[in-house]
């Protein structure tokens, strides 16, 4: 299956947008403009972008704490993302959620989660509603390798399997849960074999190959609609520390460097050039577009008002 040019552009743009967004956010951190913590997915852009770009608007996703690529993949508005990052009233969560809790129900994101594996039961339930309503759409549940050791993983995959719910479980295996290597947190090498326990299909993919991820997601969606849940493991790597402060004593510089050579953006660019899909110049323009969008987002966010303390009780309860 060859991808249309527009899709290639979309994938390339969204990956760049993610990276630009995060690099900028990281700078804002250093400048002390951001409160709290943040988890960057630099190096993993192909996962969320590849998967979400293959979805339709009405398909749903649940995101992880490391999910800017997922949100951008699903067409979230980076102005509102950045505003939320800065805790502003115009942010997705009116400044109440922050970067661990960005959501955009209007584009099908049921939100990022601060709890490891916390989105897994929720995705299962969202898919239950889809099935109940005989929807043609599916739910994609993102989670990490570390999350695969939570009870919520097991219960969710089992429940989705016995009910044949249209949910695609996507494991972003970046080799570590915080400082803990998968070698120390599980006694298997291929996380996708855990599908066996639920009688469902499991596949493991190169998580830095955005084109393949996109294509496999299209297929997976059909599988999931017809047969129920599936487990897709995307093997990748996180370049930065786990969160704001991380001395990274648990891994070697060499390991990081090796993975950097697998940069999903560089790879996609090389692919696009090699196959004559875009020219250098065209790709540079895309990059510029991403940089401009992020600059505008920062401006939007910085010029946005702070939330008001008198609204603090809003949305604790719905009417």
């Amino acid at each position, binding site marked *: 299956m060859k991808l249309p040019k527009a899709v290639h552009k979309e994938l390339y743009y969204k990956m760049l947008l993610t990276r630009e967004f995060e690099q900028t956010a990281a700078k804002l951190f250093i400048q002390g403009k951001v409160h709290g913590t943040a988890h960057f997915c630099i190096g993993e852009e192909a996962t969320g972008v590849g998967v979400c770009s293959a979805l339709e608007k009405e398909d*749903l996703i*649940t995101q992880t704490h490391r999910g800017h690529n997922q949100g951008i993949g699903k067409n979230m508005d980076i102005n509102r993302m950045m505003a939320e990052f800065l805790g502003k009233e115009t*942010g*997705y*969560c*009116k*400044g*109440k*959620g922050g970067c661990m*809790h960005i*959501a*955009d*129900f*209007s584009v099908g994101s*049921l*939100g990022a*989660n*601060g*709890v490891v594996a*916390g989105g*897994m*039961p*929720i*995705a*299962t*339930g*969202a*898919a*239950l*509603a*889809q099935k*109940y*309503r005989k929807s043609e759409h599916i739910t994609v549940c993102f989670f990490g390798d570390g999350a695969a050791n939570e*009870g*919520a993983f097991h*219960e*969710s995959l*089992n*429940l989705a399997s*016995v*009910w044949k719910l249209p949910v695609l479980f996507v494991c972003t295996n970046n080799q570590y849960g915080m400082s803990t290597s998968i070698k120390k947190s599980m006694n298997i090498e291929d996380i996708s074999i855990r599908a066996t326990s639920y009688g469902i299909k499991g596949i493991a993919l190169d998580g830095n190959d955005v084109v393949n991820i996109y294509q496999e997601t299209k297929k997976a969606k059909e599988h999931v609609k017809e047969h129920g849940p599936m487990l897709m493991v995307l093997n990748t790597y996180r370049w930065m520390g786990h969160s704001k402060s991380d001395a990274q004593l648990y891994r070697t510089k060499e390991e990081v460097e090796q993975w950097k050579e697998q940069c999903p953006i560089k790879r996609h660019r090389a692919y696009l050039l090699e196959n004559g899909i875009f020219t250098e110049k065209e790709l540079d323009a895309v990059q510029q577009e991403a940089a401009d969008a992020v600059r505008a987002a920062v401006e939007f966010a910085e010029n946005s008002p702070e939330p008001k303390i008198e609204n603090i009780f*809003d*949305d*604790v*309860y*719905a*009417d």
Partner: protein
Amino acid sequence: MRDITYAQAINEAMSEEMRKDDSIIFLGEDIGVYGGAFGVSRGMIEEFGEERVRDTPISELAITGAAAGAAMNGLRPIVEIMFSDFMTLAMEQLVNQAAKNRFQFGGQGSVPMVLRAPGGSGTGAAEQHSQSLEAWVAHVPGLKVVIPSTPYDAKGLLKSAIRDNNPVVFLEQKLLYRVKGPVPEIEDDYSIPLGVADVKREGKDLTIITYGRMVPRCLTVAERFAEAKEADIEVIDIRTLVPLDKKALIDSAKKTGRVLVVHEACQTGGFGGEIVSTIVESDAFFYLDAPVKRLGGLDVPIPYNPQLEAQVVPTEEKITAALRELL
């Protein structure tokens, strides 16, 4: 009005709402042909089918979270946790997800779900099947918490809980399931708003504030005090812990000047502290003729032996003694 059991009242509330609103689904362990561990859902799978009345694997965390996820996506799920003790397995999804979802996403979604679970001791089910954990959930903003004491209240409050757009923890009382009481005919679609306490007995000498299965027990004792012309005791059933009808409690305290708070849950850290504080923080403080006292369960796990089990919660004797101390 007919007399039906508390269990039947709950069944009717669910069934009637499900007939009217196909966005309501019902999840839980053995709620189908088994009818639930306490028979509450008997007949429902036959009426509503397996798509709407769903037997689940034994996975409390996932089914609670799945209810939340389905609620975020347009359904109005009811989830039954077989014993409220097993909410301990579901707290993450209930507290971190369902309760906070709307707020943390800036009001984008809502989580209209009901988590039903029976609590309380008295059935010989011992330590791990007899707890009263309402104080935990009452401490979590975003949740509403209901504990009905009569079939009438159970049905009316559950209807409101199901119609509410927030996660509601609806805590039933095992020992009340078989108790009968008057409930309007099925045609008569009534509901009871959340957040309104009910004066189950009017009185002027002392106010008992209580809820759940301690309500009938306190009423029995109050009647005895009336018969003996010993005192005229008001019994207030708070019915919903969150929202709490503070005004009703404060007003009654002002009227009688004496307050006893009774609940089955362990006294230390129980919801009684909230009730006491509500009163003594208010201007009712200046009307009090005696200390406000709590009579909660002993601070021990619920034992198996029936004599011991009966003694760890407020008995009629203990309530009587506590009243005499205050009068």
